[in-house]
């Protein structure tokens, strides 16, 4: 929730008046402040009424101490009036002031105290927001085009406390579902509506084909347990794990992003599980297929980019790759690409990356053949074209990426597996990233790389020749 100065002042005044009050209600507590929540989280075992009061009082006491460094007198007024519970006339007598002076001083001191706590809270919020942002996978885009409305819609649905509790972004592979979810989550972070935001990715190995739903549910619960109950020992059973995950999600609102939920079959049981775990927590899914319409589910079908947004993306991405012709392309030029690829960002990026090696008319001519084919065929054509222009080292590196099964791979493992030297590895990584074939993951301190599901399918079927096989 955003913090408003006037409301905070009133809340602080109430909290001061309730200095010695311990009961089950929320009256006179500053629980919405992250400063208070942090104390409860770090030092208290359970949020009992006493613990909540102590945490609120700690924040007030620290604030009054800071106020004392600005004005001894104001700090003393607040201490005597609220911490010691002295009446105005007594404080006035002790401090050698009139009742009116004490009243005015108290008013001024509360405003000053609010300024101090407001600033502390803003700083705390910035730190917390940065921590949460740091825990997300790095964004795989440098700019987004044509999704402002989508971000606004999803953001407002997520931050409201009522329904929907489960939201799904639905769209074709490569359409930008993950990027949209990432952009929405980065906005939602700043509302501080959730005690924790967790990003999970469902990697579906081929052997899940026969029982996708159960395997996806198991993977989901395992990952949730690892994130929410990090100290869970192997001594607890899956049933206990499920109970405890549910408890954690019910105790305080969490936002759980489940990326890449590629269910092809009926997902009724999975949705029922999510609905059971939700409220007050919420789930944001990205999926290729519509997961059904049970109550409480909000489906957001992701449209393709408009030709105008596609044009902006083409120019932006070409600029990044140093392809000056395309970076200054006219709408008419970009429309020609759009006519063939449609508004699918991954397809557009792959074509643009090719344009730095092959003449654009040549690329487009090759794609015309499949103009009327399914999107999958279009991708296949594009991937083939890209594969042809890759260096041998990049081919060697890309070929081994299915080994990670969708998980981000360390550069050490990539080097060991591919057999490339360190001098060969980095140019290959750079080439593959520039061609949108490798996605950058991990942190600034430890970079990892993964491939898009469509890239993996291309490698498995067309390069390694495993079509229809299961591993």
């Amino acid at each position, binding site marked *: 929730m955003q913090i408003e100065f006037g409301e905070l002042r009133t809340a602080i005044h109430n909290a001061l008046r309730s200095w010695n009050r311990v009961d089950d209600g929320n009256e006179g507590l500053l629980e919405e402040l992250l400063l208070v929540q942090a104390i409860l989280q770090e030092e208290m*075992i359970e949020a009992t009424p006493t613990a909540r009061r102590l945490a609120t009082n700690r924040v007030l006491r620290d604030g009054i101490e800071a106020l004392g460094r600005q004005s001894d007198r104001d700090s003393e007024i607040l201490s005597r009036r609220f911490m010691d519970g002295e009446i105005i006339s007594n404080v006035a007598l002790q401090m050698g002031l009139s009742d009116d002076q004490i009243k005015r001083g108290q008013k001024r001191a509360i405003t000053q105290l609010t300024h101090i706590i407001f600033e502390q809270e803003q700083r705390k919020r910035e730190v917390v927001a940065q921590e949460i942002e740091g825990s997300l996978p790095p964004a795989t885009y440098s700019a987004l085009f044509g999704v402002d409305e989508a971000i606004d819609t999803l953001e407002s649905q997520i931050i409201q406390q009522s329904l929907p509790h489960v939201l799904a972004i639905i769209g074709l592979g490569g359409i930008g579902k993950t990027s949209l979810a990432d952009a929405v989550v980065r906005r939602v972070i700043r509302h501080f509506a959730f005690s924790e935001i967790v990003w999970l990715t469902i*990697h579906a*190995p081929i*052997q899940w084909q026969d029982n996708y739903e159960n395997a996806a549910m*198991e993977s989901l619960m*395992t990952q949730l347990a*690892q994130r929410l*109950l990090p*100290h*869970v*020992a*192997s*001594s*607890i*059973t899956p*049933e*206990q794990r499920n*109970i*405890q995950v549910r*408890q954690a999600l019910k105790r305080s609102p969490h936002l759980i992003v489940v990326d890449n939920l590629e269910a092809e079959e009926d997902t009724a049981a999975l949705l029922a599980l999510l609905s059971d775990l939700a409220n007050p927590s919420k789930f944001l899914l990205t999926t290729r297929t519509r997961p059904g319409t049970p109550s409480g589910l909000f489906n957001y079908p992701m449209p393709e980019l408009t030709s105008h947004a596609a044009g902006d993306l083409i120019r932006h991405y070409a600029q990044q790759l140093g392809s000056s012709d395309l970076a200054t392309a006219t709408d008419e030029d970009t429309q020609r690409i759009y006519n063939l690829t449609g508004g699918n960002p991954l397809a557009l990026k792959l074509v643009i990356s090719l344009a730095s090696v092959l003449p654009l008319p040549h690329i487009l001519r090759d794609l015309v053949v499949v103009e009327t084919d399914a999107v999958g065929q279009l991708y296949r054509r594009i991937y083939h074209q890209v594969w042809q222009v890759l260096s*041998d080292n990049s*081919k*060697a590196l890309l*070929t*081994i990426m*299915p*080994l*990670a*099964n969708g*998980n981000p*791979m*360390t550069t*050490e*493992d990539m080097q*060991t*597996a*591919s*057999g490339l030297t360190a001098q060969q590895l980095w140019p290959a990584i750079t080439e593959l990233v520039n061609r949108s074939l490798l996605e950058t993951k991990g942190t600034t301190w430890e970079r990892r790389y993964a491939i898009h599901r469509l890239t993996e399918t291309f490698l498995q079927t067309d*390069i*390694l*020749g495993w079509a229809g096989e299961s*591993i």
Partner: protein
Amino acid sequence: MTQSAQTHFIQATNNVLTRWQSKTQALSDDLLASLQPEYALILSYTQYGLRWAETRETAVALIEQIYPLIELYGRWEQWLTNVEKVITELENDKSLTMFKLVRCQSRLLFWTRQTDKAKRVNSQALIIASGLEDNRLYMAQTYLEMSMLHLQCQELAEARAYGEKSLGILEKMPDEIVLKATTLGILGHIALEQHRFEQAIVYLEQAIEYQATFLISIANLARMYNVLGVVHQNLGASELAEQQFEKASTLLEPTNNLIDKVRTQVNLGWFYYEQKNYSQAEQVFDRLVQGKTLWQLENTHLQASTMQNLGNSLVAMSRYREAEDYLTRSIELWSIGNDKINHANTLGTRGEARAKQRDKNGACKDFREALELVNAYPENKRAQTLAKRFTRQLIKQGCKL
């Protein structure tokens, strides 16, 4: 690329498996803790490794080597699916690799609590091992696994027989220190369960000597001190018992092994309780309940039993009102953990605390509820003993049945 993509991929699989084999050769507590982000990758690499004949042996060797990692981070069903798929494909294979695969399957079944199937699978491993050349080590490993499975099922005579067979082989293999230390530890545990306390001490002291001399694993060494402490406690050697718990505690102090730290403290508290030193027991349990570690573990069984032990200590000091609060929280935790027999046991204790405070209605309600819970387990010995206790209390308190 000069070689075919498929050959390159198989070579890549072998490369990465070999790298992880060398990286996980000595799995210290710190290394284990640092490997969580890599766990899904290792699972995926071994999954591909099991797929091809060229890489299968390396994959199986890696899986065997990283048992502690798999035990810690779970996803056992997925590992089991991968291993069982290869075993089905290789059907009549009797090679060393097949033997190792079957042993992996047995261990994964053990972790997924399918002990009956694990015993059957392990018998299969014994048959394959008996046909292998120079098979002493494999036989000893399989006997030990069998012993652990039977211990888990409380089939103590069988557990002992298999454990002794394993030890018999290992006595002639002086280089197999790790396996021997583990076998001695298991035999010590079995002897404790069988109330052969003197023999338990002999086994455990030998195991500790090996563990300490060769610094095999701090967690295992601490666990053995804990078991030894319980043995001494049973023998009434309280000072010696306390020393063992303290040794375990000191060993674990600098590590991040939270669960063993808590278990050691619970043992210590229980020791004081048994000594009728209730205030000391209260201190130990209270420290756990008020601290953060117990709650970080999110292990309801351990939380519930600690809370109950604190309640029991207070009951023993006639501080019934305070005890009732802790027992109530323990009951809630047993309920969350769906442990009905322990739930009933704590309900019974709370009923007794209520009866002492002349809260007859509350006491009767607890005894009736407890009796209903245990009556659902007519085959379980402990449940039936508890049923008798609750029935006696219902009669004693003059409750309506």
